């Protein structure tokens, strides 16, 4: 059991696993795994759907732009609520302009450009770290009652 202290509250990790993502076929199993975590903390169907849709967006970005990487799934609690945290880590090229990438409709890949901004709207916590030439890490948390 690991404890991560943040400014506001203490988040406890109860269960954790890491999944390697290298090809498109890895997307569905990952999504199902994330759903299992959602079910385990008792998430509603709506929140489960939001969580797996967000997961789907970010894992596709990790494959398409980051060239693959790994995903960490955790079930977390903050004392008041339980939730699922998913972290997407790639060692790809990074994002040159995050503000631009977070805009609705911005895409360098001829797609809808809704993955990052849409994901942010679907989850309760969204954090993105990126460094040119070094990769991108996106962390999302969905609380059971969030």
């Amino acid at each position: 059991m690991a404890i991560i202290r943040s400014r506001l509250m203490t988040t406890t990790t109860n269960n954790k696993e890491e999944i390697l993502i290298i090809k498109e076929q890895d997307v569905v199993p990952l999504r199902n795994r994330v759903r299992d975590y959602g079910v385990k903390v008792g998430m509603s169907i709506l929140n489960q759907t939001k969580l797996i849709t967000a997961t789907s967006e970010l894992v596709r970005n990790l494959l398409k732009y980051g060239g693959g990487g790994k995903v960490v799934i955790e079930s977390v609690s903050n004392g008041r609520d339980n939730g699922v945290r998913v972290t997407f880590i790639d060692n790809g090229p990074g994002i040159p302009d995050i503000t631009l990438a977070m805009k609705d409709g911005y895409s360098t890949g001829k797609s809808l450009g809704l993955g990052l901004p849409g994901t942010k709207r679907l989850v309760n916590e969204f954090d993105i770290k990126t460094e040119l030439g070094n990769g991108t890490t996106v962390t999302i948390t969905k609380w059971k009652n969030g």
Partner: protein
Amino acid sequence: MQNNVLSSLKEHENKLLTIWSQLLLENGSTDGITEEEESKEFTSLLLDALRISNGNNQESEEFEKVHDLLIGISSSRAKRGFSPRENAQYLISFKEAASQILSELERDPVKLYDANLILGSVIDNMTIMTFEAYMKGREDVISRQIDEISEISTPVIRVWDGVVALPIIGTLDSSRTQVVMENLLQQIVDTGSSIAILDISGVPAVDSLVAQHLIKTVSATRLMGAECIISGIRPEIAQTVVHLGIDLTGIITKASLASALQTAFDMLQLTVVKRK
């Protein structure tokens, strides 16, 4: 290089088995009874191989027997739900047990070092083999499933004169969209239909890629002069799509296949009435 202490491990077979089982139980990488026989046979064969070829020739007939048995064990362990980690632990624990006995038997540090080196290389090779067996088993399953899925995935159904429906079950990835779209367009031509219903009740999640594929399919249908209705949009999918920011305003969407069919009837100016 002759290493006598490795050869003499055979004389301590029972002790080795005891220590090994102990270790396996401690790190939880065995389910106990069901495995005892296999482990016994494995130990016996491996110690024979070490006695005869001394670990220097791992391609020998004796080692071949050990390897065959091991592949059987690891695939049966895989089926019983052991992780690759637990599978590796199985062999690593064996090495630990054998190492313990070696240090009791051999007092000369150089000879002991040699013995451990050979033992290490033998076990490492086997670990790699079990990993490969495990992966191969998994890949076989996966490729069989892919074949099965693409076979059952895209039936186009003629629901009415001039109306075709295509239920989509599972994930609509890029390659599958291609198949779905080709099938649908072909059926529209073949049946001379003017309305296509794409039912997504069986799609677990609609992300922006799936949405883009759906939009593309609708546009292609319209280019053929037909109208496309998307049905089976569950409430949670509808809400998620809205939050995601996907614009489906130009597309006719319906909650159920039944209401899509009703819409199709309206468009064809058909009325379904109850017989008096």
